[in-house]
């Protein structure tokens, strides 16, 4: 057994529960009757809607335009008619404008042409990434063209994130197995844009079959890519922890990976970049893992952006219990719990989970120090929480509140099950308000 690396400080080992959906091949969702396409599917300013009620749209047509530098275009997932323009509440709780599109009965066959991206310049490829509305698909949905515009800074390492450390989620795993050729080609597109010194794909040890499969593919094609298995530990999929694990560099507080010469890109994003570069296909669909103990038949579903959660759950045979305790968009460690099954899928929806809660014994802080020992950022969650509870936001900031990325290790491990992450979200909001 080879020695595998991981990040050093903190982290937890939740039960990964991936066996529920690991063996399920990606299946396409039958076209829903209505699609609710949000104009805010990315980090940054919402896109400006280009269509109004009654307009006809074509699959892949731009229907929302990036409204500022950090923003992304939105495209129609289907050919059809705009039935309505409504405000919609996303799983994160944010409300945004959305176009409700009624698809035509017959959908065109599109995006089959093969374009030669190798003939394009890095600048043109970057422009293509922007035009295709690509955002980070690991969940943070940072517009990819902004991340790739490194402004002449040298990229030592391009690190591809195949960690998928959140329990339950298997969409990246299935992509690596079923779309290996395309994903690797997408990585080579990225390499052409960035000219990195080296390329590493980081994959956790619970996906060793993906490690060996991608390794053989890389050898076969002769790509200059290193496939690196990593020891399992949450939150290794966070870019700071991933860079520590793969290239042993720490992103300084408040800085970005590019400041240490690195760019991190998610597996799903690489596939989207492949489709953009080779087929000029915009980001209009994604793989969503629908899983959890509350789902009858967990699946990995290729769903169009704008499909409702209810459509996906129905495709999985519905709930396994009368009423699951919670619906979560994303993984159980950092995902958002939401109530409404009409919530639409967006570009960042890596998973939809129906969970059955274990009973929790809540208690008081007993100063056990587990939150401190397990914090991957080296913070003192116990003390920040106490300060926030007492309204001392400045003291919490002094302790490094803004370095907290709400990964949830502290709240996961806390034997008193204190709502630590909730406290930190509140603390950040309150200190912003007072600033």
């Amino acid at each position: 057994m080879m020695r595998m690396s991981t990040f050093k400080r903190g982290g937890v080992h939740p039960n990964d529960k991936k066996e529920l959906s690991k063996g399920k091949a990606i299946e396409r969702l039958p076209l829903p009757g209505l699609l609710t396409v949000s104009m805010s599917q990315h980090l940054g300013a919402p896109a400006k809607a280009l269509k109004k009620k009654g307009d006809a749209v074509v699959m892949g047509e731009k229907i929302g335009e990036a409204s500022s530098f950090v923003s992304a275009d939105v495209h129609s997932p289907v050919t059809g008619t705009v039935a309505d323009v409504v405000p919609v509440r996303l799983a994160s709780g944010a409300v945004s404008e959305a176009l409700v599109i009624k698809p035509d009965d017959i959908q065109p066959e599109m995006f089959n042409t093969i374009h030669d991206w190798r003939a394009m310049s890095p600048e043109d490829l970057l422009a293509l990434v922007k035009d295709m509305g690509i955002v980070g698909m690991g969940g943070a949905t940072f517009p990819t063209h902004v991340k790739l515009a490194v402004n002449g800074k040298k990229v030592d390492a391009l690190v591809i994130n195949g960690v998928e450390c959140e329990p339950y989620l298997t969409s990246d795993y299935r992509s690596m197995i079923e779309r290996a050729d395309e994903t690797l080609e997408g990585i080579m597109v990225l390499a052409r844009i960035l000219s990195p010194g080296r390329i590493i794909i980081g994959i956790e040890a619970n996906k060793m079959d993906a490690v060996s499969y991608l390794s053989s593919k890389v050898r076969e094609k002769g790509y200059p890519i290193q496939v690196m298995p990593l020891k399992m530990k949450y939150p290794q999929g966070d870019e700071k922890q991933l860079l520590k694990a793969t290239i042993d560099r720490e992103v300084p507080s408040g800085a970005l990976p590019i400041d240490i010469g690195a760019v991190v890109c998610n597996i799903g994003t690489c596939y989207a970049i492949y489709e953009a570069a080779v087929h000029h296909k915009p980001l209009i669909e994604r793989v969503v893992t629908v899983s959890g103990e509350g789902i009858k038949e967990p699946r990995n579903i290729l769903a169009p952006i704008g499909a409702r959660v209810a459509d996906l759950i129905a495709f999985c045979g519905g709930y396994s219990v009368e009423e699951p305790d919670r619906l979560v968009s994303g993984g159980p460690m950092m995902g958002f719990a939401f109530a409404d099954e009409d919530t639409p899928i967006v570009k960042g929806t890596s998973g939809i989970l129906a969970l059955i809660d274990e009973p929790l014994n809540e208690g008081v802080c007993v100063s056990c120090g587990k939150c401190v020992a397990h914090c991957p950022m080296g913070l003192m969650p116990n003390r920040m929480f106490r300060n926030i509870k007492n309204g001392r936001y400045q003291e919490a900031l002094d302790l490094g509140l803004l370095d907290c990325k709400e990964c949830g290790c502290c709240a996961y491990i806390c034997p008193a099950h204190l709502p630590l992450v909730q406290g930190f979200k509140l603390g950040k909001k309150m200190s912003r308000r007072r600033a």
Partner: protein
Amino acid sequence: MRKVSASPHVHSPMDIRKSMLFVIIALLPSSIWGVYAFGLRALLVLLVSIAASVLTEFLLGRIDKKNTLGDLSAVVTGLLIGMNMPPQIPLYIPVIASFFAILVVKWTFGGLGCNWMNPALAGRVFVFFSFSSAMSSFSAPRALAADALASATPLGAVKTAIAGGMTGLDYEGVLNQLGHTSTAFAQSLGSTLGISPYTVDAFIGNVGGCIGEVSSLLLLVGGIFLIASRVITWHIPVVYLGSFAILSWVFGGVRAGLGLFNGEVLMPLFTGGLFLGAFFMATDWVTTPTTKRGEVIFALGCGFFTFLIRYFGSLPEGVSLAIILMNILTPTIDRYVRPKKFGYVKPVKEARK
């Protein structure tokens, strides 16, 4: 009802009640040995201590209209107090200790999580200074019942003898001179391993002492169980025992006229409740530092003060007082010792122009 709350939506199955339950399970082997070695009277002491702790917690909860028995912390406190009592102790003494521990040390400061001193230790020390002679008279364990001298703890006996001028001998020599005996099993195992039979007996638990402190072997088993189940980490017990062992080895022989680097190591480790203290008292969540580095400093302090009190103080045992002293210093340690934050690498100093 569908629930909506902040992430994370999954939690570690380990909670406070379960952790306390694990501590109780880890303490059971040593407690059962105590009952075997000292008889049913010891069981009575344990039960009375637990009952007194739980009852005090319950009654105080009634005043605040809350029931905190479910976290099992009062059971742990009571059990630890009982384990820290000599087997023949008059029953009102553990009752007073439990009452003091729960009311004065724990509830006065706000209950579980708010006390700044280990309640069980504080209760033990309170009754130790209040009822010194009852707290210092021990009975012989079952295996040495025929031996009249075995009712003194070896640690106490050696300290008294050395203070009385018996120098130039190691522990085995002193105990032989005093006429102590050991079990046949310890003699055969000791000669095989080349160590003193008294050390073997002390490790197994064939020695006079408090009910739950005599068997270092079973306390070690319980301690390893607690580390394996991640209720505690290895830092405090290993550093505590290690620092004490090194100090004993280097300086422990000085008073007996044996010079430096000639002190007894194993016997002092296995006696005087050191294993009970190192694995179960010094690892109390509430009253120890929250950072690993802080815990190491805490444990070094425990080792140092235990050594100091045992060899240079007037009492034969120093574990309780050393831990309490470090409990008092814990807020200070926590104020100054902080974990190293991620992403705060010191910038490389630019060369002066």
